[in-house]
């Protein structure tokens, strides 16, 4: 057991990435609500104020549009701000800055300025936070050219992708999952970067490809265990980034299995699952033996009541049923 890799939480993996990148590059600074004296709403920035001081770990007023825009302006000069928006739900207040400024500045000014910034924010449902605090907005950000969109599922990816994001010269939307902060796993060292645009096979399999990201990876893996017990062998693939999207790895798997299920905690209409499915139809139509099935949250604002919320968000049983559907089996068969 002594050479087993250390188990680090997703939260601490992010903290390691921030600390290492701040040590490495003076241009990196952190800004957000309650990230300094309070250590962050989810304690991701714990200890960083003490180590780096108020100049580099900046508590802001509750003013998301303002400090997001401030980060963009600072990034235009070559600084590397990491902006924490306390949760993705509050990013909606800053959407003009993200969409009209961050994503467009490099293009609309003919490449004269880059925006090397990261906007970190957790999202997702499952904690009875009700309609205004349970969003999964991957689709909104992925819709926008000029942004990069990163969705880590493991501590190793949380650390390695955040390091890549901080060193990247484009605005990166870094979507964490509130449900994963306590998840433990091994992490890489100081120089272990996880590249963008490289999907990873979480579980190899023959019968159906299940594509899932962030917390849904774990839901898909639970479903895969259940299916394995039924003699169905699914492959679980985690895209890890939606911009850029590693369509090659996804399509190669679907061509092998001839079936696909796409799992996404967001809403179904014009969602991430819909977008990925459309790419797969373009790339793999002739290989498919069944329609692609999407598993999304219900098309409703998130309800508070625990039983309703659980009914609204994708569960392993929903993924099992979707795989059954691609195999032409009755649910529960």
């Amino acid at each position, binding site marked *: 057991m002594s050479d087993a890799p250390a188990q680090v939480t997703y939260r601490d993996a992010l903290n390691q990435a921030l600390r290492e990148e701040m040590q490495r590059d003076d241009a990196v*600074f952190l800004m957000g609500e309650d990230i300094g004296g309070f250590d962050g709403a989810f304690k991701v920035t714990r200890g960083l104020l003490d180590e780096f001081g108020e*100049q580099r770990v900046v508590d*802001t*007023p509750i*003013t998301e*549009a*303002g*400090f*997001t*825009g*401030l*980060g*963009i*302006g*600072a*990034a*235009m*000069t*070559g*600084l590397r*701000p990491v902006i924490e928006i306390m949760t993705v739900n509050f990013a909606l207040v800053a959407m*003009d*800055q993200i969409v*009209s*400024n961050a994503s467009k*500045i*490099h*293009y*609309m*000014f*003919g*490449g*004269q*300025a*880059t925006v*090397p910034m990261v906007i970190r924010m957790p999202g997702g449902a499952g904690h009875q936070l009700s309609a205004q605090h349970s969003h999964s907005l991957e689709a909104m950000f*992925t819709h926008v*050219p*000029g942004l*990069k969109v990163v969705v880590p599922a493991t501590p190793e990816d949380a650390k390695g992708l955040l390091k890549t994001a901080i060193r*990247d*010269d*484009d605005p990166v939307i870094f979507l964490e999952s509130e449900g994963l902060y306590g998840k433990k796993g091994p992490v890489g060292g100081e120089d272990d970067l996880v590249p963008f*645009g490289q999907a990873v096979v979480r579980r190899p399999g023959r019968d159906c490809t299940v594509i899932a990201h962030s917390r849904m990876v774990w839901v898909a893996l639970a479903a895969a265990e259940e299916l394995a017990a039924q003699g169905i062998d699914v492959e679980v693939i985690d895209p890890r980034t*939606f*911009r*850029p*999207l590693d*369509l090659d790895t996804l399509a190669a798997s679907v061509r092998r299995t001839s079936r696909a299920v796409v799992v996404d905690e967001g809403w179904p209409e014009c969602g991430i699952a819909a*977008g990925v499915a459309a*790419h797969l139809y373009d790339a793999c139509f002739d290989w498919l033996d069944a329609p692609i099935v999407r598993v999304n949250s219900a098309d409703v604002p998130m309800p508070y009541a625990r039983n309703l919320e659980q009914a609204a968000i994708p569960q392993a049983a929903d993924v099992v049923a979707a795989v059954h559907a691609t195999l032409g089996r009755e649910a529960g068969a």
Partner: protein
Amino acid sequence: MTHAAPTAQPDHDGMRAMFRTMTLIRRFEERASDEYMAGRIGGFLHLAIGEEAAIVGTVSALRPDDPLTSTYREHGQALARGSDPRAIMAELLGRATGICGGRGGSMHLMDRDRSFYGGYGIVGGAVPLALGLAWATRYRGGDQVSVTMFGEGAANQGVVSECFNMAGLWDLPIVFLILNNQYGMGTPVERAAAVEDFYPRAAAYDIESWKVDGMDVLAVRGAVAEAARLAREERRPACVELLAYRYRGHSMSDPDTVRATEEKERWKARDPLVTFERVLLGEGIMDADAIAAMQAEIDDVVADAAAFAEESPEVPVDQLARDVYARPWNDDPRGSALMRP
């Protein structure tokens, strides 16, 4: 590189240069209007004719390395910063030789080499960027001052109040310039603002602020020089409201039928070019011959810019997806699956 900050009162050479720049902006925009009417400029074209004193008074009071941001009505800011009129006109015509390669057009000029950080199209949206430029200056220990020009309409946007608050809270080296031209498109100030003066809003956040006549280029220069001095030397933000008037509609597509003729005539009697010319003549700083020669020189510059733009090549369509990202994905100019045009 260090620069001396301009003085509040310019010397005679400085005054001649200011008058030349004001004339250049006026003639350039008149030509841009013609180009638009001829169908060679598309989209929106917002002219600042009438606001030249506010623009030139401001830019002349700054060091060339003070980062400047503006709204979509920003041809004058780029010209005042010394950007090539050819490259600006070519941008308006959407040509490959444009200052932003034909990507931005009239509303989105930028000249990074001259610390002009751009014109932005969402009202109020550039103000937090200017705050970030001020933040970056302080972060690096520089002595530049971030200067952002926006209208009184933008002052009603929430994000501008957010920026006043952070600037006051953190004592950032920024100068907010509220160019109050008294109309948000066609809506007059009295129908859009509970209080018709805007500078007190900044004062509410402990920012030194005051109002000056935006039609008087020397008054603007003096006020902005003092505001920049506060930000540069005392490390305090400042805000100046410049009361001015635009002689054209909001954009070329606005026939300007809302504003009363008498009101327009009253403000045209205070045309900043005419009044400043009177000062220069009265004080013997320029004579009529010198002014005529300068105007002829400007006419040549503008005609040359227009000819250059008209003769410039279109932007190659194979560059459509260039610069969406800092680097092409996988060296494929079309980008990845989700980056293709």
